[in-house]
């Protein structure tokens, strides 16, 4: 019955869609009526600070948390009625690794594959392929406990792929990893996307969002405040470059007026001023010509961090 009722993927191949999606816990509204749609084969991101409602959204999308109100569809199915059928086609990589540390690397995969109803033979073949993919083949027989954080993360991702999911959900995939481990992981995710798996991820790292996402939504306080590709968001909400100025001052608010009129816009942070201008060097020259002497002046490309700052008045990582 479940098999028969699956809607064929629609024209634009939307695998996942939400309208007015809301999640409340008692009086607290974690997700406040958001709309989004994810197309087949893309990498879609939720960017926002901790507590923005990203994880609650992911749990609803993963069909492990009932929708309070609004409409959510995966593969055209309603999670409330077809949770198991949808989860059979999803991969889920939670924020915290949920591996069994007492078992070996490969046992973790074997056991997990059985939950999806794969035969023992299938599970073994898949596990071998995935360990190769996750670069863990030589650790296959080791216990999970002593593995590094990056290896555990890759194993969690390998495990979430055991059923060849059509959508892979990644909740803060690289939080807590060192820079090198992050790059290894990004490379694996990029390969995955190229092989046709649709990725949906949350992150509070703007560099991660820029590296991986084709499209993303910026979330704050349970709402979506902007949507687009990383490039288009930067184009829309920021200038091309940013001039960062640091002064020998307790509070940079006090020195902010000195730079008024330079660039398109100035953002004041406690420890520095951000001058938004399409040509950062030129803005620095103007600063200099005014006789202002900052401790340091740095010109850089605008990032999603600047988009977020502009939209919410706050930084992503406090």
């Amino acid at each position, binding site marked *: 019955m479940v098999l028969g009722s699956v809607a064929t993927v629609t024209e634009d191949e939307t695998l996942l869609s939400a309208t007015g999606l809301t999640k409340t816990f008692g009086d607290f509204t974690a997700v406040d009526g958001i709309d989004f749609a994810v197309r087949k084969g893309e990498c879609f991101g939720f960017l926002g600070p901790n507590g923005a409602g990203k994880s609650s959204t992911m749990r609803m999308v993963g069909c492990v948390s009932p929708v309070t109100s609004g409409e959510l569809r995966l593969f055209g199915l309603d999670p409330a009625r077809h949770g198991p059928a949808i989860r*059979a086609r999803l991969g889920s990589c939670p924020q915290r690794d949920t591996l069994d540390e*007492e078992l070996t690397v490969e046992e973790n995969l074997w056991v997990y594959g059985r939950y999806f109803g794969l035969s023992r033979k299938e599970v073994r073949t898949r596990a071998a392929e995935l360990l190769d993919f996750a670069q863990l083949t030589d650790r296959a027989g080791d216990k999970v406990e002593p593995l590094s954080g990056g290896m555990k993360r890759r194993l969690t991702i390998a495990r*979430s792929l055991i059923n060849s999911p059509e959508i892979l959900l990644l909740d803060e995939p690289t939080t807590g990893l060192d820079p090198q481990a992050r790059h290894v992981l990004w490379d694996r995710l990029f390969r995955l996307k190229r092989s046709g798996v649709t990725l949906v991820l949350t992150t509070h790292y703007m560099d991660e969002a820029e590296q991986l996402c084709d499209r993303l939504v910026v979330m704050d306080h349970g709402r979506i405040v902007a949507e687009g590709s990383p490039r288009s968001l930067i184009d829309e909400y920021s200038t091309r470059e940013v001039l960062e100025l640091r002064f020998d001052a307790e509070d940079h608010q006090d020195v902010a007026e000195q730079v008024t009129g330079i660039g398109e816009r100035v953002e004041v942070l406690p420890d520095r001023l951000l001058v938004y201008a399409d040509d950062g060097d030129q803005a620095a020259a103007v600063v200099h010509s005014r006789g202002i002497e900052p401790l340091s002046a740095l010109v850089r490309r605008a990032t999603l961090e600047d988009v977020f700052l502009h939209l919410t008045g706050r930084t992503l990582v406090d």
Partner: protein
Amino acid sequence: MAMATPLPSDAGTDAGVRSRARPGPRQPLSTAERMLAVFSYFLTVYRRTWRGSIIGRFLSPLFFLLAMGVGLGSLVNDRVGGVDGLPYLQFVVPAIVATQTMWVAMGESTYQVLGYIKWNMGYHAMLASPMSVRDVLRGHFLAVAAHLTTATTIFMGVAALFGGFRSVAAVFCLPIAILTGLAFTTPIFAFTARQEGDDGFNILFRWVVTPLMLFSGTFFPVEQFPGWMQPIAWVTPLWHGVEACRDVATGAVALGPFVGHVAVLAVYVAVGWWLAERSFAARLVP
């Protein structure tokens, strides 16, 4: 084929059966498949950890058999020639069979379960797959029942060597013991799913497990207590388990009371199960 491809190969698939590892709608799992998938997880874990549980599972009841059945028993037999016409050992062994299931149930339903909820989040991993809360509980209860079976069988074998049973009908202690163990398991699962730390477990051990062992007619008939205390025993699962085991082990089954004992245990299992499903759902899929 390129080195690291995440796409499934055909090697593992059986001809004629559509693999569940192929993109697209998947064939749903049957109830038995789901239950066994969860069960096989616990079996895999147990294959790694069984050594650690040996002492608590198998030696503790043996110590009690020796201390109470043999040691204290010689004192009792000397003074009054046994209890209810039975040598003390044969009086106390069926009770230890029942009591052991309570210990196993505690061991399987407290720290372990909280661990799967909170620390290693094993349940969350299962629930991200097609498994539902109901499947997870079914599979886990099946695993506990398997533990109960193993532990009881081994203890009964040893106790039989000591002459702990009067009648061959004692083999029927096994199903009763499993039922008694589950009568503790399902309500404790429900309790554990509402805990944040282990404070509740300490209270459970101190105020439920130990008093039940001591006041459920295990080491002497509850009739030794003042009349007002006896009804307390009637509502506890352990007393019913002890009485039912003792009935079959001595081959003196009075049908009415026996059915009553089994019915009370069954009610504990059923109500506990219902409560466990509710508290698991509230905790795991909020």
